[in-house]
């Protein structure tokens, strides 16, 4: 099954999930709602043929959940336990937001995103900058991988244990490639008429389908449950 969601739905989902992760889940009902809204982006990732990230998130989140609920106790002492509790806490708490944001970033094409932004009457500045930010996280990861390879080839791994050198060795090459990519990107963007005075048209027609509306309702309801529980429950 291939499901294509409107970028606006994806952004709406990100918004809702970010609100939900701000609130704690104390009861089992809230936990199940939270699990549900975490599973949805994972399923969507699978349907978008992003198997690798889907599996990675599933394992990552699953381990953190199991550890939090069955292994770790609040009374546990020691540094290792403290670190584990901290990390599992953060993963369980923020993973839904990160998974949804990742889904949104990886499955939205930039032209779709731009045209969605245009339909929502976002100012051009925010739309373009956000689009670049979105596109850039995967690029930074890739570039960083190449830098690590290059360092390994020359036998430099930790910069001789000097923290300042460690930062410098990684940051400077990364900035170099980012600046270059930025120049190429602006050239490409200007060729496509970005920043002109006319209203841009788009090849992709955006339309809200049944799926989009269902998902929006579902995520709104999830937020509603949390809000109700926090302020009125």
């Amino acid at each position: 099954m291939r499901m294509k969601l409107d970028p606006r739905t994806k952004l709406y989902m990100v918004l809702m999930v970010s609100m939900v992760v701000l609130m704690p889940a104390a009861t089992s009902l809230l936990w199940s709602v939270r699990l549900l809204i975490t599973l949805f982006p994972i399923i969507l990732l699978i349907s978008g043929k992003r198997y690798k990230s889907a599996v990675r998130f599933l394992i990552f989140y699953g381990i953190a959940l199991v550890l939090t609920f069955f292994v770790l106790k609040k009374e546990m002492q020691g540094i290792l336990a403290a670190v584990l509790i901290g990390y599992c806490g953060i993963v369980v708490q923020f993973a839904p937001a990160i998974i949804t944001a990742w889904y949104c970033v990886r499955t939205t094409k930039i032209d779709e995103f731009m045209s969605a932004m245009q339909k929502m009457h976002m100012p051009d500045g925010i739309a373009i900058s956000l689009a670049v930010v979105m596109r850039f996280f995967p690029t930074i990861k890739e570039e960083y991988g190449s830098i690590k390879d290059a360092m390994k080839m020359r036998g430099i791994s930790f910069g001789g244990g000097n923290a300042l050198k460690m930062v410098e060795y990684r940051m400077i090459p990364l900035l170099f490639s980012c600046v270059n990519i930025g120049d190429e990107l602006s050239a490409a963007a200007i060729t496509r008429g970005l920043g002109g005075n006319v209203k841009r048209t788009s090849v992709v027609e955006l339309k809200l389908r049944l799926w989009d509306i269902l998902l929006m309702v579902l995520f709104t309801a999830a937020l509603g449950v949390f809000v109700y529980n926090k302020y009125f429950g």
Partner: protein
Amino acid sequence: MNNNKLCAKDFITIGIFTAILIVVEFLCGLLGYIHPYIVASYVVMIPLVGAIPMMLFYTKVEKFGMISLMSVLIAIIMFVLGMGYLGAPLIVAAGVIADLIAKFGKYKSFKKTILSNGVFSLWICANYFPVIVTADSYRQDLIDEGYSTEYCDNLFGAINGKTIAVLLILCFVFGCIGAVVGKKAVKKHFEKAGIV
């Protein structure tokens, strides 16, 4: 470019440097779950590490609005990553003030850039905001979320209404120090290579 309006190239520059800054913030942020005192030390770590991209960014800033827009983007991304909306006005305020300071130096004066970077660094403190403003309920939330009580005690011992002043000053000072260090790095690597 003679006119003062921002164009597509500027927006792309902003986007790139915002992405780099967020990655720096995120990596430093991961360390914070080891011990709450590290959370407090963000004010030292992030301005120093983030200064290199920031100084490179400052060399590209020529018009009013670029730094402000960057702070708006940071506020949006912080919200999406689950940091809450309480800090958002502070982040944007820091960005606009930093922008104004840099504008006074016509985006060329190095002294103004140092000050501006110091003010801009204050956005990091905005992330502490929920800890201070909604201390009691936030503490309960954290405990409900599975943080240990010990962690919370330390966290609220390190960050509260009294220490925030110190943290803000530290943040500003290290933002300024970071600017000097970052400028050196930019000079050493980028000006020689002719990128700036």
